């Protein structure tokens, strides 16, 4: 089912005066889509999700779920009457109940009441989705974090809601479990075809799971797009920096042809790249290049033809990370980060060439 958010605003009062948490949020989630709000803490992503859940009252704007307007002009449908399921950051598994009683709870409520005789089957079905059938009769406090998260997911899904809301569900789990559950949640939501809104501050989760991502900062959406777009074509330096590591080269545009490659003169050297329309010669810009786009070669290697941009520098730091070596290279006094394969024998003090394709560069006007 489609979810639409139009011009959503929310203001909190604080001792220092009103704080604008949301300043006109607009987006639309297609039926069956996995949509992620990504941003640092305090950016308004959780507030947006909680407005959709009905747990917060927006000050303005409109929220629709399917064809129903659930919130408009400060009036809103209470959460218990919305066709949603939700998983909380703290899991919010009720400790005074068993797993079964936690999951059956939504089926006893007016919105999604199911006849007594069918409840057991429905609960076991939901528990099977998250592979928790054997633990149905276990008291909730006797569950590990990962198990609690699975129960929370089963509880959110048992009433077959139209929309699933996930509020940083993986942030309290350890790295390994997070990785596993990431895949499970993605597979599960896709196989159920449920419309999902996911909120996270972890760009890896967002990139790995989402159909589309909206990057938020200070109550506004900075950019919306597919994970590939967000990563490769960030529209500003914050998005570029937030979804992954990035090197910025500050400089001035020296060539800006309507077609083909232009050029930027930076402190590290001349970089040829595509200059977005609207940026004129002489404009101050930043050129961003991700570390993994830099091919690093020791400078005294013989031969080789350079196909793109080349910078020359000296390795000042090399940190072995297991799957790669994280190198810091000083280019004309500018630190540049590069990702080097582990098989490489590059070490501190080596003179290196950093080679990168013009298409790996994204230019932002300063």
């Amino acid at each position, binding site marked *: 089912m489609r979810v639409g958010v139009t011009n959503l605003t929310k203001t909190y009062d604080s*001792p220092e005066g009103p704080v604008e948490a949301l300043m006109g949020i607009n987006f639309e989630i297609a039926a069956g889509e996995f949509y992620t709000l990504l941003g640092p803490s305090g950016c308004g992503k959780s507030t947006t999700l909680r407005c959709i859940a*009905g*747990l917060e009252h927006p000050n303005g704007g409109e929220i629709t779920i399917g064809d129903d307007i659930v919130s408009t002009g400060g009036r809103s449908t209470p*959460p218990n009457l919305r066709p949603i399921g939700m998983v909380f*950051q703290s899991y919010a598994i*009720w400790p005074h109940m068993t797993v079964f009683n936690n999951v059956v709870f939504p089926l006893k409520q*007016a919105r999604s009441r199911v006849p007594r005789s069918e409840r057991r089957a429905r609960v076991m079905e939901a528990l099977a989705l998250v592979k928790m059938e054997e633990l149905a009769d276990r008291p909730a406090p006797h569950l590990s974090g990962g198990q609690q998260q699975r129960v929370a997911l089963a509880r959110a899904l048992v009433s077959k809601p139209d929309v699933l809301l996930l509020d940083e569900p993986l942030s309290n789990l350890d790295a390994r479990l997070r990785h596993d559950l990431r895949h499970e949640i993605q597979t599960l939501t896709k196989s159920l075809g449920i419309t999902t809104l996911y909120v996270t501050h972890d760009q890896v989760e967002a990139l790995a799971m989402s159909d589309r991502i909206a990057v938020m900062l200070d109550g506004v959406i900075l950019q919306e797009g597919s994970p590939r777009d967000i990563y490769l074509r960030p529209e500003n330096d914050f998005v570029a920096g937030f979804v992954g590591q990035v090197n910025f080269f500050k400089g001035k545009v020296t060539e800006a042809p309507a077609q083909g490659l232009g050029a930027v003169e930076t402190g590290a050297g001349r970089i040829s790249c595509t200059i977005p329309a609207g940026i004129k010669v002489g404009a101050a810009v930043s050129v961003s290049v991700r570390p993994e786009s830099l091919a690093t070669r020791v400078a005294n290697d013989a031969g080789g033809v350079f196909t793109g941009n080349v910078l020359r520098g000296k390795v000042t730091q090399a940190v072995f990370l297991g799957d790669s070596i994280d190198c810091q290279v000083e280019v004309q006094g500018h630190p540049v980060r590069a990702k080097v394969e582990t098989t490489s024998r590059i070490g501190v003090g080596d003179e290196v060439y950093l080679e990168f394709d013009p298409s790996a560069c994204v230019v932002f006007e300063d």
Partner: protein
Amino acid sequence: MASGDPARALGLMRSRIPWDAIRNNWAVIAIIAFLLFLILVPITRLLINSFLLGHPSVPEGWTLQNYTAAFSMPIFYSALVTTIWIAAVGTFVTLALAVLFAWLIERTDMPGRNLAWSLILIPMAIPGVLFALGWTLLLSPKIGALNIYLRDFFNLFGVQFEEGPINIYTLGGLIFLDGLRGVTTVFLMIVGSFRMMDPSLEEAARVSKAGAAATFFQVTLPAMLPAVLAAAMYSFISSMESFEAPLAVGLPGNIFVLSTLIYFTTRIQAPMDYGLAAVFGVSYMVLMVLLLVVYRRFVRHSDRFSTITGKGFRPRVTSIGKWRYPALAMFVLYFLLAVVAPFAILLWASILPSYRVPSWEALSLFTWANYVEIFEADRVLNVVWNTVYLMLVAATVTMILAFVTSWGIVRSQVKGAGLLDGLVFLPHAIPGIVIALALIMAYLSPPLKYLGLYGSMSLMVMGLVVSYVAFGTRLMNSAIMQVHKELEQAAYVSGAGTMRTLFTITLPLLFPAFAAGWVWVAVHALRSFSIPLMLASRENEVFAVLLWEYWEEGTSSLSSALGVLMILVLIPLTLLMRRFIVQFSGQQG
């Protein structure tokens, strides 16, 4: 909440209330409104009636005459002075004993410390009226058992007394009773501080060459001072509100305090003067609210100078050497006076056909007749039923109202939550006798008199609910704060409404606190005296009232038998509350 700076609390919550929030929470709002109605209507009515002439049900017009009359009555001022004097000296005695016992029990090697910890709770199981009645049997100038023994003793040396030598029906008698009564509560309020105090403070004093006594007076006591002063203030307030001893001992001795003055004006003197009583009630209430404000200020400051560090160290036990047994003797004497002597004399009176001074020959008159008579009396079954009903209903209603109201206070982010918290705490400062008086006026006056609640059990329940709801909300506030908000929100998004969530999620999660509060209110309802005495009618008497009636009719043996039964029920209930009392005392205010 209101315990913080109210202005700040209000400023913080200046968010508008969406119409939906009201619609979704209408049941919670209705329950809170009902509680406010219970609290505010009688208080308002009391204020109004203090400006009215005539009987509440047929007012004869507005006047200031009640005030001019009251303020020109010498007895009003003498009652005021007596009230304050008894409370002040009584609190001093209470405090000295409680501090001494807290230190002896927690920080010294006095023998039998663990047993003493439990024994010091027992006085709570003896209702104030029984404590006072017991002591009148012991120390009434003519027939008091102790007085008779003393006369016999002095007789051996040729000193003759007509009566006495000790007379309980005096100011000194009242101070004696008040001083002994408060020890348990104050002990419970300060014992935690003694236990938790960082022992290195005392060790530093010892290595600085201070002796045990110097250490206690120069280090231990000053470090405890904030907690001790807060407890003293609390004890002072309780003494100011005391009613039972002033009734049983003060009235026969013609000594009036504010509470008995109100009782006398509305229940004994003829014609009753409700306008005058209302003025007394209003003055009393204003005085107590002022004291409560001072007390809350005190408690706030005491946090700042807290010596409790929260680390779980064992307190250092000071050896008091040759003083160990004198210390124990001191405690035993206290226990004899506070529990054993009054209980023993009641027990004695209950097994004789009519009261005689304890002696071996009198014991031959032993009989169960009083107990048999009690159980055979027609009204007793009725009284037992009324008492049980009052306990169950008052405890349940109080705790449910407190639970829902606290939930509203803690969870809502609206302006006025702090004010609401203050309002439901207000009755804490209002003496039971004033609450009862206010209820009488409210339900005798139009329009509420048409409900016909005057003289019914419901009115008594209302009085107890108003009295205990401040306690209930304190307890529920802290319990609800410990329940993670997301546990409730998970229920909303699962399709449950507010009330459903409150009763299937929140209440079960904080049930231990709720149950503890329930028991606390039930026990206090069973012991309650001033409210039932003012509000009960002939058909719905409760235990405490029947007991007082027997006493007034001169059948002290029946009254004693009832008292003994009551204490036997209360002792296990009191011990049941032990753990929990400690928690609450720590967070008073």
